[in-house]
C-alpha cells in the first residue's frame, strides 16, 4: 500500500475517534499528556530546562554571552532563539541545516517572548554601539512526538525563569569582565504558547505526531500571566471561521494557565 493510502486510513481512524470526543490514547480532546519539566540541570548553561511532554522530549539551554548590538539599537542587548531538529529525534529527520518547520518553531517561540517584552533588553548594553549582552535560547529536540511549539515554549519559559545571569563589569579602558556574581534574570512577563489543532470539526490540544500528521490546521496562541495575548500563529492549508478562532483563543487562555503553573514550578 502506498504511504498515501496508509495515511488516508490513519486519518480516517483518528478523525472518527476524535469525533466521539476521545483520543487514540484515551485522552480528552482538551487534555495534555503528562508534562514533566526539570530546570537548572546543566552546569554550563546560565539557564536550562528538560521537558517531557508524553514522548516528546526537548532540552532548552539559555546561554548569556557578549556580542555586537544592532546598528539601530546600540545600547540594547540581543536575544536569539534557535531550534535544532536533531537527527536522533525522529527517523525522518536528517543532519543538516534547520528545515523550514524548525525555523517556524524558533520564530513562533521567539515571537511570544519578544512581544511580551519578557526581558528588558535596554538594560543589557555594555559599551554603546560596540558590545552588548547576548541571550541565546536554544530549543533542542531529542524525541519528536508532536506539539513541539508548546513543549519548547514551556521549556523556554522554565529555563529563562531559572536563569542565573552573570554580572559584567566594564573597565574604564573598555575591557569587559564577567564577575563571579550572578543574579536571577529579571522577567517582566510569563508568556506561554498553547496550540489548538483542528481535526475534522473538533478542536484538540497537545497533538501527538500521528494527530499532527492528519490534522487540518492549527492555531498557536501565546498568552501572558494577565490573560493578554502576545502572539498568534495559524498554520495548515485550511481556513478557520471567526467562531472557531474565538474558541481556540478561549481554550488557549484556559490551558496556558494550567501549563504555566508547571513551567514556573522551578522558579
Amino acid at each position, binding site marked *: 500500500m502506498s504511504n498515501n493510502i496508509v495515511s488516508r486510513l490513519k486519518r480516517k481512524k483518528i478523525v472518527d475517534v476524535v469525533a466521539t470526543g476521545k483520543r487514540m490514547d484515551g485522552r480528552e480532546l482538551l487534555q495534555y499528556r503528562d508534562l514533566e519539566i526539570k530546570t537548572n540541570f546543566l552546569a554550563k548553561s546560565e539557564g536550562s530546562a528538560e521537558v517531557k511532554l508524553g514522548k516528546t522530549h526537548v532540552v532548552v539551554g539559555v546561554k548569556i554571552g557578549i556580542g555586537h548590538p*544592532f546598528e539601530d539599537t546600540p545600547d540594547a542587548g540581543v536575544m536569539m532563539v534557535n531550534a535544532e531538529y536533531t537527527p536522533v529525534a525522529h527517523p525522518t529527520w536528517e543532519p543538516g541545516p534547520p528545515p523550514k518547520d524548525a525555523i517556524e518553531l524558533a520564530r513562533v517561540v521567539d515571537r511570544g517572548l519578544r512581544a511580551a517584552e519578557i526581558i528588558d533588553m535596554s538594560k543589557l548594553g555594555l559599551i554603546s554601539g560596540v558590545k552588548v549582552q547576548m541571550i541565546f535560547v536554544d530549543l533542542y529536540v531529542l524525541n519528536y512526538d508532536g506539539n513541539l511549539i508548546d513543549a519548547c515554549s514551556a521549556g523556554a519559559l522554565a529555563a529563562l525563569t531559572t536563569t542565573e545571569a552573570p554580572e559584567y563589569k566594564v573597565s574604564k579602558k573598555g575591557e569587559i569582565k564577567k564577575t563571579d556574581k550572578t543574579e536571577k534574570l529579571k522577567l517582566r512577563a510569563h508568556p506561554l504558547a498553547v496550540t489548538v489543532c483542528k481535526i475534522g470539526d473538533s478542536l484538540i490540544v497537545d497533538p501527538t505526531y500521528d494527530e499532527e500528521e492528519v490534522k487540518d490546521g492549527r492555531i498557536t496562541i501565546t498568552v501572558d500571566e494577565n490573560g493578554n495575548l502576545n502572539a498568534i500563529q495559524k498554520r495548515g492549508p485550511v481556513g478557520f471561521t471567526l467562531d472557531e478562532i474565538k474558541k481556540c483563543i478561549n481554550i488557549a487562555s484556559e490551558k496556558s494557565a494550567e501549563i504555566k503553573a508547571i513551567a514556573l514550578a522551578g522558579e
Partner: protein
Amino acid sequence: MSKTTKKKTTKRKTSKKKWTRVDGRKPDELRPIHIESGVIPNADGSAYIEMGRNKIIAGVYGPREMHPKRFSKPNMGILRCRYHMAPFSVDPRRSPAPSRRDKEISMVMTDAIEPALFLERYPRSVIDVFVEIIEADGGTRCASINAAAVALADAGIPMKDLVSSCASGKYEGNLILDLGDYEDKNGESDVPVAYLPKNDQVTLLQMEGIMTQDETEKCIELAIEGCKQIYEIQKEALKKKYGMVEATEETEEAPEEEEPVEEAEEE
C-alpha cells in the same frame, strides 16, 4: 529577526476624540490600493500591487511538472509560494539571501492561498507563486497575498474564491486597520489576516504584541472588514483586464476522489 522588542506597551489616550492616525486616515480606513494584472510577460499569470507605499510584484508559473520529482504528490498538486524582499526594499539594505523571516512568511502565505485552489486536479504538479517585494511599507505579507491571488486568477487557474488580506492592530490604544510602516513599528500590536470572502474563512492569522482577548477578536473582525473591501478592488482589477467579474467562479465541489493509479515514485 532578533532585534529588541518591537511593540511599545499600551499608552492609552484619555481623550479619544482628537486622535488621528499619522497619515490622517480614519481608524478603519485602508491605504490607497492599486492592482494591475498581467505585468510579467514570461509568467503564466502576474500582478503588481501598490498598497500604501508597498510595491510588490507576483508571478505564477504552473501548474507545471515538479522538480525534483520526489517532492511531487501522486494524487494532488503542490502550491509553492516564495516571498522575497529585494535588497533595496528596506532601509538599511538587506542581503539578497532569504532570511528566516522570508521563509516563515512563504509558509504562511502558502497556507493562506491553498484553500482557494483545487490542487487535487493537478497530481504530480506544482504551482509556483513568486513574490518580490520591490519596496516595503508595512503589511508586505498581506499585500503579497492580494497580488498573488490576482496573479493566480490572471494565470487562468480555477479558484474557489479570491483570497484577500489585510492587517489590523493597536496603536496608541486604538484599534486600526491596515497599518503603515510607522504604525507597524511603533504600535502595540499587529494582526495580519487573510480571508476567503465566499467561505467566510480566515486562512492567514498571525498576531504579535500585547492585547486583551477582546481587543484581539475585535482586531480580527476589523481586518476581515478590510479584506472585504480589498476583495472588491481585486475583482475590479481582473474585470478591467477580462471584462468580467466572475472570472474565477467555479463549482466548489471537489471532483470525486479516486485511488491513485500509480504509486509515488521513489527516488
